[in-house]
């Protein structure tokens, strides 16, 4: 096992792009090589050690045997864990945009909040956020037909709009509320929202969205039977019928506005 610990040397006003912060990119490098990796702040390219302190023993390891621990404020550091396939990233505070973007394996855990585009186009592995997350959790890039395809996302708090937009597979669990259009264009993913949402499942064709709290449901969903899950009654809907969708929307408490 190898543990690499990083911490910002200062407060970043301009956001930093650091896709190199990933077990795949770091595990096989010695500490000097790690320090020399390129990161960007705006239009300035820096070496990692200009912006971050780095601690680690020098023994290289496989990505799967590597933990990257990020201490301090990483809320303005983007693309942490981009494309990671194995290993662990522990963000002890908050993480900036695009954390876990395109990851296919390993574990990304964020102790506080995650910014927009968390686990965008994720293919596998697991992402855990103890606080809130922003818009487009598990979504696809602009214009893509497919968002998250596999893996698991768990957010304890609330998330913004467009949760799991274009999700094709995998599962998402939100402990709080989800913003507008959760699970839009769902094509086979599973989304569970403990709290409330607004117009979930728009244009979904497959998959399941469960909203335990209240939800404003689109008129293009057909009301089905009431089902019992874990002792709670859910109103079941089929939709989105604008696209002949065969998705399943379960709502604990329907708001008739």
């Amino acid at each position, binding site marked *: 096992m190898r543990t690499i610990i990083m911490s910002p040397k200062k407060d970043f006003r301009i956001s930093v792009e650091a896709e190199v912060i990933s077990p795949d990119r770091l595990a096989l490098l010695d500490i000097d090589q790690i320090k020399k990796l390129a990161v960007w702040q705006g239009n300035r390219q820096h070496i990692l050690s200009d912006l971050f302190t780095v601690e680690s023993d020098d023994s290289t390891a496989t990505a799967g045997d590597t933990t990257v621990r990020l201490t301090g404020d990483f809320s303005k550091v983007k693309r942490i864990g981009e494309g990671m396939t194995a290993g662990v990233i522990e963000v002890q505070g908050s993480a900036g945009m695009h954390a876990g973007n395109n990851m296919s394996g390993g574990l990304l855990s964020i102790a506080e909040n995650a910014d927009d585009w968390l686990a965008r186009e994720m293919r596998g592995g697991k992402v855990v956020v103890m606080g809130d997350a922003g818009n487009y959790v598990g979504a696809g*890039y*602009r*214009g*893509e*037909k497919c968002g998250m395809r596999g893996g698991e996302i768990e957010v304890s708090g609330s998330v913004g709009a467009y949760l799991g937009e274009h999700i094709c597979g995998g599962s998402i669990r939100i402990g709080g509320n989800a913003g507008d259009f959760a699970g839009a264009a769902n094509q086979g993913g599973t989304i569970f929202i403990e709290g409330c949402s607004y117009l979930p499942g728009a244009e979904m064709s497959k998959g399941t969205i469960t909203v335990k709290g209240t939800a404003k449901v689109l008129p293009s969903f057909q009301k089905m039977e009431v089902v019992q899950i874990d002792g709670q009654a859910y109103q079941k809907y089929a939709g989105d019928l604008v696209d002949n969708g065969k998705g399943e929307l379960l709502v604990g408490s329907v708001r008739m506005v």
Partner: protein
Amino acid sequence: MIIKGGIVYDPANGIFGEEMDLFVDKGRMVEQAKGEEIDAHGLLVMPGGVDAHSHIAGKKVNTGRIMRPDDSRLGTEPRTGTCRPSTGYTVPNCYAIGYRYARMGYTTAFEAATPILEARHTHEELEEIPIIDKGALTLFGNNWQVMECIRNNDMDMLAAYMAWGLRSARGYGVKIVNPGGGEAWGFGGNVKGLDDPVPNFDVTPAEIIRGLAQANEMLRLPHSIHLHLNNLGKPGNYNTAIETLDLLKDIRPGRMRQVVHITHMQFSAYGGSSWRDFESKAPVIADYFNSHHHATMDMGQLLFGSATTMTADAPLEYGNARLTHNKWSNHDIELEESSGVVPMVYSRKMLVNAVQWAVGLELALLVADPWKILMTTDHPNGSPFVNYPEVISLLISKPKRDAEMALMHDQVQNRTSLSGIERELDWTDIVIMTRAAPARILGLQDKGHLGPGADADITIYNLMPEELDASQNHDLVKKALACAKYTIKGGAVVSKDGQILSTPPGRTFWVDAAVPQDDADRLMPELEEKFAKYYSVQLSNYAVQDAYLPHAQVIRAGLSVESLKEVA
């Protein structure tokens, strides 16, 4: 400049793989010259590539970019000291188009379809494409003025209008797309065949095609009509192709060339009555071309993977969008055309796509004379142009084709003749199909060959044609063709081993055809009325201004030009 010791293929001048030196001076090929020496000993040397049909500029290309950020993010390269940034795969930005053609050894490419009304936009983009020379074909097949002239059987006025339209559009040649269908699409319809009248205009597609072909030859334009057939993309459409070809066989060419160029023939060589019994009719089409001499074609090869379909055949695109449940852009152009854009993924596993893949190859391998068929992918409809090396490696290697077919649906064997075709094209064939023939078919006298006076557009590939078994080493061929050792454009090295060294602006060719003054005088009142009543812009704001073509190359044609080569 002297290019020493290359194995030169210049079939237009009867040179088929001879070791020789080439000389360049002031951007042109000459008999003797001094200066920089490029060592090409044993390497494959040929004229710069000429792409006669590629969607590289204008409204629908840009629509493709705007609706596909998912594509633009592919192939991204940062700005360098020499290059602007590159983006995109099927819909690359302007800079990437220039650099990627140049890297591949291409030095000329023609935009395939521009409505007159939106030609200004096309030229803005063409001017932004670095390095390569360009031109744009102008759409006439659904134009109200054209249809009215044909309905009134006024060929002189039709010729006058075409000359005016080309001048207004700064266009190079006459493009016809699904004639009549674009007008019918104005109310959501289409035409079903050559004799199906165009609603409200009392002409048929057959009359439009014949009329434009005749007027094209009256004007003695450098290029023939360039035709995207009716019923394109539909099972059973090979009949429409043959009927259309027959319709034109008695037309006398105004120059020593074909009277019709059928574009992306692959999409029009289908048998069957539905997608269920869909099959190749490439052998029938090839037979026709082998026994007739008034027509040429380009392949429109389809390759597996991502594409963006874009065409003035708007009803076809609507059908594509419904079929694939994909995003759909449509753009109707008042009084002139319609068009559409739909992203597409072609898959080996889809029988229809696999048959389409085979049809393009069958056409290229079954047409005996390589001067009659150009290698294209109808970029980006069949595949982006960066995949030309893949097409060529399929054409030169039977083993490669067999290996590919082994991955496909069994039915491809039964529905196409490809597995039975032994022919492997040689370098002469390839150079003709990618250089000499496109230049001749377009009527570009200084392109596609290396004779004295020709543009010094030269490609040197890192291949030893005398030592290499191309069929067996198709991977090597593909790799070498993707990245020329040297691309020389207008006498300057623009790309070396894939690195862009300089980015001179390319020229834009357009055709100015003279017509008798009284025909032009009869035309103008009709146009003035059209602008007063129907167009949403003023006549005085319509034509492309010279400011948009700072590197224009005008080619003169028309009824009063005497210096042209006459056809006996």
